[in-house]
């Protein structure tokens, strides 16, 4: 704001300086309010990204296996792994020492060892294999052996880790298991594959149900419904449904789908049905908006050339409104993907190791997995939780971008 310098103005308005200062102050308060949200968002996503990026990597250790060990235990990878560890850590003495040594390596590393053994040629006396280390060692190594991460390790484990790190026997590799495996009690074996599949299946059910019903309802309300009290009631009803807390939909699912219809608890199909009830109002509302955007001249031209009302709508209005409807549907699906509370009500919160194979199988969903892991005491699960959140956010971003691009590309301006 430019300052008035006219002598008269200044003389007649003695408080002007203060008022201009108040003006600038007011504007900055607004800016600070906006900045607060942006900074919070930055810290939220930044913090989770820093914490979670480690979940995509695992630490491997190089162990030496001799021909004799293979000859003795080759058929039993579990024992072979244990003997190999003791061979590589000769300082491990006594029962407790052995236990410490076994805990250096990841649970499930014996399966990996078996895979490696199968591809091993019998050419030398000593083989070198890379195997994943346990979660506590992994966390300590990822934190560059920081003091507070070493606390959970015993003295000898700390010594071994230090010597492995010094001798270059540790390396980082991409943790495919995190993306493909199901849940597990052991952090090093736990993955989001199962939860992801559960989310995809639920969303598929949700999409099929709510897309068709939502668009049909929108077409009826916008194109055919008479303007009377019943229609007005329907509209109020749909608007209110859009603001009902999501947990209430979970209660509905529990009472109707599980107890009344007897559908299987924890299954993706019930999850999808509950989510579809939740997204239905959103889809109806956005679909109506895109139908409204189609100019009446299109309808009138079709009717004028002798099309029936149904023909006019389905052949001419709907194709023009579909991009907007799809955008609304994708946004609704994105909301459904992030929803947790209603799924807790219908039992999708169970500990499920095997990924679901059918829509009736017990399943869990990505946000529920986040919730489950966030409760786990192991430190490694905090990293996994953040990693799972990152995957969730990436998918949400992907869906939202698709919706925005679709709108930009296909939507017509009339």
């Amino acid at each position, binding site marked *: 704001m430019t300052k008035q310098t006219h002598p008269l103005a200044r003389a007649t308005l003695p408080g002007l300086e203060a008022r201009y200062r108040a003006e600038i102050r007011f504007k900055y308060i607004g800016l600070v309010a*906006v900045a607060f949200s942006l900074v919070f968002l930055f810290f939220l996503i930044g913090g989770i990204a820093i914490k979670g990026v480690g979940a995509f990597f695992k630490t491997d250790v190089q162990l030496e296996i001799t021909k004799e060990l293979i000859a003795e235990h080759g058929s039993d990878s579990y024992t072979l792994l244990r003997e190999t560890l003791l061979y590589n850590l000769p300082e491990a003495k006594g029962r407790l020492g052995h236990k410490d040594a076994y805990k250096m390596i990841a649970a499930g590393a014996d399966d990996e060892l078996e895979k490696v053994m199968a591809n091993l040629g019998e050419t030398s006396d000593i083989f070198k294999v890379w195997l994943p280390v346990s979660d506590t060692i992994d966390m300590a190594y990822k934190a560059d052996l920081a003091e507070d991460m070493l606390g959970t390790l015993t003295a000898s484990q700390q010594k071994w880790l230090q010597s492995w790190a010094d001798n270059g026997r540790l390396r980082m590799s991409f943790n495919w298991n995190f993306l493909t495996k199901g849940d597990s009690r052991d952090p090093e074996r736990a993955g989001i594959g199962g939860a992801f599949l559960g989310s995809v299946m639920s969303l598929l059910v949700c999409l099929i149900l709510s897309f068709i019903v939502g668009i049909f309802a929108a077409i009826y309300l916008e194109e055919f419904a008479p303007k009377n009290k019943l229609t007005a009631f329907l509209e109020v009803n749909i608007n209110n449904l859009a603001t009902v807390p999501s947990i209430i939909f979970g209660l509905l699912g529990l009472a109707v789908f599980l107890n009344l219809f007897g559908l299987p608890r924890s299954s993706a199909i019930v999850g999808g049905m509950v989510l579809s009830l939740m997204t239905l109002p959103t889809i109806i509302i956005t679909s109506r908006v895109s139908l409204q955007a189609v100019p009446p001249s299109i309808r009138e031209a079709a009717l004028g050339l002798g099309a029936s009302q149904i023909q006019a709508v389905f052949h001419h209005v709907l194709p023009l409104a579909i991009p907007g409807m799809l955008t609304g549907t994708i946004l609704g699906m994105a909301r459904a993907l992030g929803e947790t509370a209603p799924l807790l009500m219908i039992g999708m919160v169970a500990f499920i190791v095997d990924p679901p194979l059918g829509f009736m199988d017990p399943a869990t969903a990505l946000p529920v997995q986040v919730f489950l892991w966030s409760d786990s005491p192991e430190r490694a699960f905090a990293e996994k939780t953040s990693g799972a959140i990152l995957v969730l956010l990436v998918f949400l971003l992907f869906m939202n971008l698709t919706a925005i691009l679709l709108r930009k590309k296909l939507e017509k301006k009339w």
Partner: protein
Amino acid sequence: MAVATNKNGFSAGKKRYGEKAIKLALVASSTVAVLVTVGIVFSLLFESLLFFQDVNFFDFIFGLDWNPQIAMRSDQVGSSGAFGAVPLLVGTLLISFIALSVAAPLGIYSAIYLAEYAGDKRRAVIKPVLEVLAGIPTVVYGFFAAIVIAPALRGAGASIGLDIASESALAAGLVMGVMIIPLVSSISDDVITAVPSALREGSLGLGATKSETIRRVVLPAALPGIAGGIMLAASRAVGETMIVVMAAGLSANLTFNPLEAVTTVTVQIVMLLTGDQEFDSAKTLSAFALGLTLFVITLIFNLIGNWAVNRYREAYD
């Protein structure tokens, strides 16, 4: 021979039975929305009525003690447990109040900045970013509140000699507040932009500065709409589940102190219905009574909020 004509005066031609079927499908689809509402109301009412056969309605609404865990054996003394919802309602309102004290000022000031000060370019950047804030799943906010905000508050409290519970109402409320900022700001933004520019120009023409115009003319004119928006935000806060499940407490604690752990209606519903359950016990049924309470509270907030926002819009249209 009389030819059947449609409303445009043309011959109706052959009967299109397929079209009848399509139209029927359209009508059926729109009744699904009503069926969902009916389903919600009836399932909640039905289970709640079963619950109120065991527990007196007034004990539920006015009871000061919430302790559903003792209702285990039917023959033991005091087997009905304690189903007083007051501590839960107080906890819910406390956390919602904290959330609104964060979201209302920040949301309204953001809206003022966006509507009155920010240029088109800044607006085009800031609005989508605020929408991102609204699009983040609540489970992520809950995780952030439990892992980052709550320990930080506890540390800050300890350094000035305040004892803050690790699952304080404050941590949950603050994060929930940030979550509903976009809701408040987008409604306020709409409402402020809808204030006729004649009002602004009149004030500016009389020599008021821009901020004086906003504070004395635009905001009072927009107040009903903004208040409606805040009602809608309050409804969101009351029904929010994951943030409070992860960051607020589990045990019912009748207090207005934001530094202590409180529990909410939604947290208790989750607690009662996850894990093993026998369906006809008062403990499980109480979750539906809580659900009904929640539904009624949010419905009232929504109706008032929508009414205020719509009435406001009509006033200036």
